[in-house]
């Protein structure tokens, strides 16, 4: 056997195994533990002892069993066969595990990460004599109907192509191109390997001035996200983190979605597996599953693999970014990942910092979120990795360490609110506590692609909501009847905005995804009524009269009544609301009850 370092198990404590004996393990090296060859990773090296975290259940391990080195860090295989698939935290294919072990996941089930038998139709783009550098595209494979998988020269390889096969059917083990790099000849297949904890290289970063359009009004309009940005969705249980993540995974205008179910419910993964193949991507017209990769390490699967799942997900994302795709990573939930760190740290008896979390929690979080970005790749394409991390704060309290440290490394904060969730206002994004620091950068894009007045209208909408916040403090004390009519109108308009605009029904065919143009027209219709109604109130007409006219209900129902593909109907709506308000005005004038202005 080529593996030289070997040790024997000395102690076992949950997923943490102490190894002694002849050993020369490297830090973060992948090792095989025990007779069942469980996958583990070296996390501490001492003078006469090595500590390994094991990615599988350690029940039944015995002291004295061998631990064998593999000589390489924890890596993933990158190649055709990833897309549309579901893997566990260390890129083992769950569907194939199910074929061999049935309902339950048994341990020691070492599998090939990618299907080695499947033949892919490969189109070769390189010729012998070409000089290629890292990242250069040498072949193409139609991985799914939606995704064209580009085979690239792996990082750190450069040289002249000496041999290339013809177009045809190949499996992932067959050599397609040989590259002469100095004296060394590299045989390239459809697959490359990459250590998960190391970011993949790129040429340089690009400014984050293109939005990730999600079709969710509260996000796109009020708190927009950039392609290549990092966002957090914190919220106590039952506030709809997972629902929001699912909505983003469905409708965000990324080319590729990597959905990491990290320490969450098994049924949520199952739901994605059942829903996504049936849902149609509005842009490509193909099933959403064709552009989605799932990493499922549920809460009852081994905790060390949960820690790795986040890195596995982001590495897959970076690989597709290198091909020139915009990739969005949904990590649900980063708190479970932080808890996995805490659990392992506790078993290593490390000195804890806040609430038992290790002192390196902030640095791990920053390393992760910094892997987001929009970049120019070595092959000249542009791609991005956007990260959207859910945070599950203990007790719903945003002052806990994971939320606080996450806030330092993200620039888009969508705070979910328990009170909103209780009234079934979804998405329960609180418009007072949330923010997006990308807004300024995205202003130009919105002016050019949505409407020149988009940002002005958005500011006006935010202003009304802020004002409502202040007024509600007063209303709580004295009731709304005593407010002056102008302020009552603000409350009415804010209600329209909350119910007609911010609330969005994920289960309604039209409302689940709303194009940016419609979002603008909805704001426009609301503000038109607001201005006109303010004029009537100035004439002395009570808000209750305007409310009785039903004009506000017209606005609240426009999200259902006006289909996404018939935006001209907004003219009809605007005419109708204008007519209603005009009638109120003329009735009042006729009755002579109008205040002289």
């Amino acid at each position, binding site marked *: 056997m080529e593996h030289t370092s070997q040790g024997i198990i000395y102690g076992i404590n949950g997923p943490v195994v102490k190894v002694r004996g002849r050993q020369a393990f490297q830090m973060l090296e992948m090792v095989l533990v025990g007779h069942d060859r469980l996958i583990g990773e070296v996390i501490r090296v001492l003078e006469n002892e090595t500590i390994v975290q094991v990615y599988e259940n350690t029940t039944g391990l015995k002291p004295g069993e061998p631990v064998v080195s593999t000589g390489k860090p924890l890596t993933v295989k990158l190649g055709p066969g990833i897309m549309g698939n579901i893997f566990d935290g260390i890129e083992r294919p769950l569907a194939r595990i199910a074929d061999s072990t049935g309902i339950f996941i048994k341990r020691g089930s070492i599998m090939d990460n990618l299907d080695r038998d499947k033949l892919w139709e490969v189109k070769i783009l390189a010729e012998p004599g070409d000089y290629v550098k890292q990242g250069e595209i040498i072949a193409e494979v139609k991985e799914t109907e939606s995704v064209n998988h580009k085979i690239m020269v792996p990082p750190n390889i450069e040289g002249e192509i000496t041999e290339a096969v013809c177009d045809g059917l190949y499996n992932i083990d067959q050599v397609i191109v040989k590259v002469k790099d100095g004296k060394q000849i590299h045989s390239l297949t459809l697959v490359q390997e990459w250590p998960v904890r190391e970011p993949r290289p790129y040429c340089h970063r690009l400014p984050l001035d293109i939005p990730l359009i999600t079709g969710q009004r509260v996000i796109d309009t009020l708190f927009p996200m950039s392609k290549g940005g990092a966002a957090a969705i914190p919220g106590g249980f039952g506030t709809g983190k997972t629902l929001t993540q699912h909505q983003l995974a469905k409708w965000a205008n990324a080319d590729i979605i990597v959905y990491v179910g990290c320490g969450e419910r098994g049924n949520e993964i*199952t739901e994605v597996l059942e829903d996504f193949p049936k849902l149609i991507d509005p842009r490509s017209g193909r099933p959403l599953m064709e552009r989605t990769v799932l990493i499922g390490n549920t809460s009852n699967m081994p905790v060390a693999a949960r820690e790795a799942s986040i890195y596995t997900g982001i590495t897959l994302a970076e690989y597709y970014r290198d091909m020139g795709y915009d990739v969005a990573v949904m990590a649900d939930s980063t708190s479970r990942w932080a808890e996995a760190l805490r659990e392992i740290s506790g078993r290593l008896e490390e000195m804890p910092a806040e609430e038992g979390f290790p002192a390196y929690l902030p640095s791990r979080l920053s390393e992760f979120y910094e892997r987001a970005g929009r970049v120019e790749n070595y092959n000249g394409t542009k791609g991005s990795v956007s990260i959207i991390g859910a945070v599950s704060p203990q007790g719903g309290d945003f002052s806990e360490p994971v939320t606080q440290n996450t806030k330092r490394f993200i620039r888009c904060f969508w705070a979910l609110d328990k009170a909103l969730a209780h009234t079934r206002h979804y998405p329960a994004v609180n418009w007072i506590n949330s923010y997006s620091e990308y807004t300024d950068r995205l202003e130009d894009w919105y002016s050019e692609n949505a409407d020149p007045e988009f940002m002005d209208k958005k500011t006006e909408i935010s202003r009304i909501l802020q004002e409502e916040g202040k007024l509600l403090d007063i209303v709580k004390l004295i009731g709304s*009847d005593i407010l002056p009519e102008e302020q009552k109108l603000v409350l009415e308009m804010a209600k329209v905005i909350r119910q007609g605009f911010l609330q969005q029904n994920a289960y309604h065919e039209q409302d689940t995804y709303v194009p940016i143009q419609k979002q603008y027209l909805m704001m426009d219709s609301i503000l038109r009524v607001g201005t006109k109604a303010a004029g009537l109130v100035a004439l002395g007409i009570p808000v209750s009269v305007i409310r009785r006219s039903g004009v506000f209900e017209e606005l609240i129902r426009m999200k259902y009544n006006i289909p996404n593909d018939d935006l001209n109907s907004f003219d009809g709506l605007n005419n109708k609301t204008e007519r209603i308000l005009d009638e109120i005005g003329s009735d009042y004038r006729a009755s002579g009850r109008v205040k002289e202005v």
Partner: protein
Amino acid sequence: MNVEYMGLKEISGPLVVIDGVKDASFEEMVEITVGKNKRLGRIIQIEGELCVIQVFEGTRGISLENTHTRLLGKPLKMPLSMELLGRVMDGKGRPVDGLGEIYPEKSWDVNGEPINPVMREYPRNFIQTGISSIDGLTTLIRGQKLPVFSGSGLSHNQLAVQIVKQAKIEDTEGAGFAIVFAAMGVKHDVAEYFRESFQKSGVLDRVVMFLNLANDPVVERIVTPRCALTAAEYLAYEKNMHVLVIMTDMTSYAEALREISSSKGEIPSRKGYPGYLYSDMASIYERAGMVKGCRGSITQIPILTMPNDDITHPVPDLTGYITEGQVVLDRSLSSKGIYPPINILPSLSRLMKDGIGEGHTREDHPQVANQLFASYARVQEVKALASVIGEEELSEIDRLYMNFGREFEENFIAQDFSENRNIDDTLDLGWTLLRLLPVSELDRLSPEIIEKYYKDDSEDGDF
């Protein structure tokens, strides 16, 4: 395997340490003989030849010299057969009803194994419990884990019994049903109350009871839910039965976990609970569900008491993050004499959305539920205002809300312990209440639904 180790190195709370052990494996069971009686233990940490063992029956009466210990060479297993039905076991899964041992058809490791998410079947089948606030607003779905968050002195036990009594657990295709009841650290009379109730409703021969009572050893409490769920998995996945698992009280379970963790000298996280409380509870709750290729299912109703009624306490908090919703009981409703005192606003059923509506319950169900939630949330705002300015000063519409709130609590939430309402009754009742409000306030209902249901008051003729 037949080597016996004499004496111990250390005793600390429920844990003992033995030195010089050869060939021990992690989580292996051991048998400790103290004088004439035998106790069971489990190896929870190995360090060279040192083994840390948790003793299920506790360490009382053990000294460093008076024991000898034998390794059993296997993890804790649970004997399984159809004979389990109707039996009473202790917290470790051994019969205590004097009817003899179980002759096992299968013998499974109680720790179970994680279900492969690929093999799960997404739960969609509505279970009618006959309780309006659950059926209408936090619908229970077959294969769901829906805990009851309660407080000391509230009527969680009655609620659980009423669910057992009324729930339509079995399906139309004739798969049988069974109830698995796990008591962890509850008082003897509580366990007795459940047994009597099972007897009264005539299901006792379909119940498997696992009892770890308040005065039983704490360490045993760690394996009680695992034994119960192993039995449930056997009945569901081997015998294709629909199994309802009731586990009470999960807070006692978590406290037992904390006690062992502190004896081991582990670093505590919040409120002294170990950092792995989430993963540990997940390994219990995630054993609910339905799987492909099996007709059976496991539906869990864990009951937990929130210390000091605090929903942010780690046990309810982490439970809420794992389970698919929660039913929250409320002291102020209870003191108004409302049974079941379910506070619907923090209550939630995550699986409800796919198990209600057309083809499952009735087409108007999702919208009615949504509207009732929204309107009742508004009632709370109005109540807060009324407590400041007085009910007299409220606007006309706010007074309508006050009235709606009262009627809703007294007629919809409240129902008799023996009252079994079917889903149509529940939804019609919801409409009767919504008609107390003007149409313009009903913003969660579509015009078609309003057209169809809001007006035909007279034809239905209820109330």
